[in-house]
């Protein structure tokens, strides 16, 4: 198969193009629908509130923009370093605990940033148990560094967003196999230099994709920055929306956020450059990990253990402790089973739906690399950086317009008044999830698709397979890992999502994230622990499934 792939470039491309015209059309349709909320947000710019913008400019706009940039820089650098270093250690070395760390380091993905935020504050703030004990032992003047700061927010986000980089970097390092690295080594490079000069540049698209995901998350986050009192553009949007009841102005600020997101994506694309990153051999000889001994082994184990302890064990332990306490006091959420079922159901449907859309977009781009498909994918990705509530409004306005129209048409047909059909159903919510999380699945699908050599497509075509058949028989089997990762990422993301769910959920439908929101809104962190723990545990199951899957696929 591989030799055929390398040699088969004589496929009749024009004929293939004709066959695949449906794909760019489908991509354009998907992007068009997904772009509706963005367009609604952007259309707010048509009626600028000059007085308000002057006020924002005079009082805070510069500060908000700088804070946002600082946060992006911090989270970008933090996740890049932590994710890459951990992936490198785990793929290339053997040290005590490696087998466990390899999968366990993905687990923080299941923890929402706002949850790790309030658990850390609960432990480390001035009135928390740790500082209280320190003051008792060491004197009243003892203080830990303030968590409610740039450093604190950056730390929280780095701890829960680094798995994006780790996952993609690990897959990339593995897929590279040993060939390139061994070549570099045989040319006299040390292991570290070979890593820096060969492995890392080759993994660039995956690393950039992971970092871009982490930064978009940071950009759209509201829960954490609000809890920590760190003022970003997103926080500013809520301030304008809730504080001045000016939704239009809030949408205008959100347009600024869209610009940030677009810039991020542009940088990510640019980092790929004009190079094509493909793998010739699919999982050829995987580099045999080198056994570490003594201090080096201890350092490797210590690094992994420290990250795992901070990002997972500590927050989950604190949640468990609080949960046990509220459980003992009989103050547990009303209907945990129903909440869990609602959460899982919504997340499952959203994950499958979003990944289907991502495959359409990514595959159209591969078959038909043109401005249309490229811009379709880019525009469809912007939603990830928008705060959920802004997307929700962008969905709600057009959806209710359609709904009112539909209602009056049906009323005329049936002669009876018809209520709102779409607004109160899950349609709007699923739509919002797709808008918000398409970037996640697209990044993952696209990154794995890029790594499949185009010569494979040519080979399939030359053997007479059409676009759909090539997708089914060649790409999907190869994409399985990437698709699984995409589905899980969206599933977990959806489960953690708060603001859009709040606004668009069907009447009476409650989820775990809603329960957490109700409690944390009043800083009742103990009471939020049970539903938060449930989110984390429910998120762990699919994460573990994907880990197992990726391991068996390898063997």
């Amino acid at each position, binding site marked *: 198969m591989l030799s055929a792939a390398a040699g088969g470039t004589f496929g009749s491309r024009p004929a293939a193009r004709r066959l695949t015209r449906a794909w760019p059309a489908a991509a354009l349709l998907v992007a068009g629908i997904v772009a509706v909320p963005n367009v609604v947000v952007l259309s707010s710019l048509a009626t600028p509130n000059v007085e308000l913008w002057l006020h924002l400019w005079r009082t805070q706009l510069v500060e908000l923009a700088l804070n946002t940039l600082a946060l992006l820089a911090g989270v970008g650098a933090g996740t890049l370093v932590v994710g890459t270093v951990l992936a490198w250690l785990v793929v290339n070395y053997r040290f005590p605990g490696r087998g466990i760390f390899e999968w366990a380091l993905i687990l923080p993905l299941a923890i929402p940033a706002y949850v790790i935020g309030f658990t850390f504050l609960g432990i480390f703030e001035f*009135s928390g148990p740790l500082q209280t004990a320190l003051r008792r032992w060491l004197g009243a003047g003892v203080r830990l560094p303030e968590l409610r700061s740039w450093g604190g927010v950056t730390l929280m986000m780095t701890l829960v967003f680094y798995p994006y980089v780790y996952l993609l970097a690990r897959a990339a390092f593995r897929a590279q196999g040993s060939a390139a690295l061994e070549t570099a080594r045989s040319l006299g490079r040390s292991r570290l230099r070979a890593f820096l000069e060969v492995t890392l540049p080759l993994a660039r698209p995956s690393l950039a994709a992971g970092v871009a995901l982490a930064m978009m998350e940071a950009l759209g986050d509201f829960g954490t920055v609000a809890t920590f009192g760190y003022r970003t553009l997103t926080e500013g949007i809520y301030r304008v929306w809730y504080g001045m009841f000016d939704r239009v102005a809030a949408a205008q600020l959100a347009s600024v956020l869209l610009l940030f997101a677009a810039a991020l994506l542009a940088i990510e694309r640019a980092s790929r450059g004009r190079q094509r990153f493909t793998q010739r051999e699919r999982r050829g000889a995987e580099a045999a990990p080198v056994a570490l001994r003594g201090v080096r082994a201890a350092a490797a184990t210590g690094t992994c253990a420290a990250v795992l302890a901070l990002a997972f064990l500590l927050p989950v332990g604190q949640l468990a402790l609080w949960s046990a306490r509220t459980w003992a006091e009989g103050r547990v959420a009303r209907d945990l089973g129903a909440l869990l079922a609602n959460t899982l159901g919504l997340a499952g449907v959203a994950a499958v*739906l979003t990944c289907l859309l991502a495959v359409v977009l990514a595959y159209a781009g591969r078959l038909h690399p043109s401005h249309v498909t490229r811009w379709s994918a880019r525009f469809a990705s912007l939603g990830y950086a928008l705060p959920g509530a802004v997307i929700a409004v962008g969905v709600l306005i057009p959806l209710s317009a359609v709904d009112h129209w539909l209602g009056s048409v049906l009323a005329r047909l049936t002669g009876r008044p018809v*209520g709102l059909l779409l607004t109160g159903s899950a349609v709007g919510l699923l739509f919002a999830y797709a808008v918000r999380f398409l970037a996640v699945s697209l990044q993952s699908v696209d990154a794995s698709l890029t790594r499949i050599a185009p010569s494979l497509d040519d080979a399939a075509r030359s053997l007479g397979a059409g676009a759909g058949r090539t997708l089914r028989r060649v790409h*999907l089997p190869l994409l399985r890992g990437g698709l699984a990762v995409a589905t899980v990422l969206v599933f977990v993301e959806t489960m953690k999502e708060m603001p859009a769910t709040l*606004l668009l959920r*069907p009447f009476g439908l409650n989820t775990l994230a809603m329960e957490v929101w109700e409690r944390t809104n009043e*800083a009742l962190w103990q009471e939020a622990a049970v539903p938060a723990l449930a989110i984390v545990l429910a998120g762990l199951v699919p994460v573990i499934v994907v880990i197992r899957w990726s391991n068996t696929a390898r063997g």
Partner: protein
Amino acid sequence: MQTPTRTTTGRAAAGARALLLALTIVAGAGAWHLAAAADEVVVYSARSQYGQEPAIDAFTRKTGIQVKSFGGNTSELFDRLKAEGDKTPADVLITVDAGNLWNAGRAGLLSRMDSPEIAANVPANLRDPEGRWTALTVRARTIMYNTTKVKPEELSTYEALADPKWKNRLCLRTSTYVYNQSFLATMIKRSGEPKVEQVVKGWVANNPTLINGDTKILEAIAAGQCDVGLTNTYYLGRILAKDPAFPVAAFWANQQTTGTHINISGAGITANAKNRANAVKLLEFLTSPEAQQSFADSNFEYPANPQASVNPVIAKWGKFRQDDINVAAAGEFQAAATKLADRAGYK
């Protein structure tokens, strides 16, 4: 080559079937929820609920009228009501903060209640001058102090917290918090923007610790992170009910001047209520002494109906003079208050 292809196709088909099934279930669940019974009252509520509101359960027990509650954040419920327009299932909007209620009234989301009973139950300064909403409970926002570090004689007014003697000793909630916005808005109505801006600048000059959460502020005062702060009193009530030795007490601010600032949680009937008659009945019941007693007991708030009595835990703070300005001022000057906070550097 054949086997993986077949399983992939099979998996895709199974996935599609599962997707369809799940969609049907979710849509079905949504439709089922929408099908409200004819005389049922549907409530959109932004009043933080820890379980159900006992007063609403009591209403159903007494009248047999079913009530369906849908919880959410105020602004989001507003946008939902606006989008739903004349097709909204909601009959009643319950929310916290007078500014929010004022805004709901102005946005045309509420209609006049026209109930003499409600007017008799609730004092005029706690109701919309145009009759579209009424208070359900009263919440006082006042000065909290660490009883081991501060003597009550050192305290007097909100304005006096701008005095340099409170430098590095003050804990405040962020200015984004709606109760702070309404608080500043009421102050603006009382004293005018220049004077209030001066006061807020004084607070900011005292380098306050900004904490997101009234309970957290009280804990910070107890732990000694700061000595005084501003919070709503029911948060202290909740803590004291569990821990009577908690070293924080409430000081009634501005007793010699304007009276202590109060805010409300309240309710109104939506502009497009389908079930107006029962909605009015619900609000009449919720403002009656019986329901008011349940509100006062369940959350340590002050009843809006003076006939109900205050919970014993907070009764020991004594009677205090409330600022009797109409709470609608919170809405009128809310945007001005947010901008004033921005100008004064209060984050």
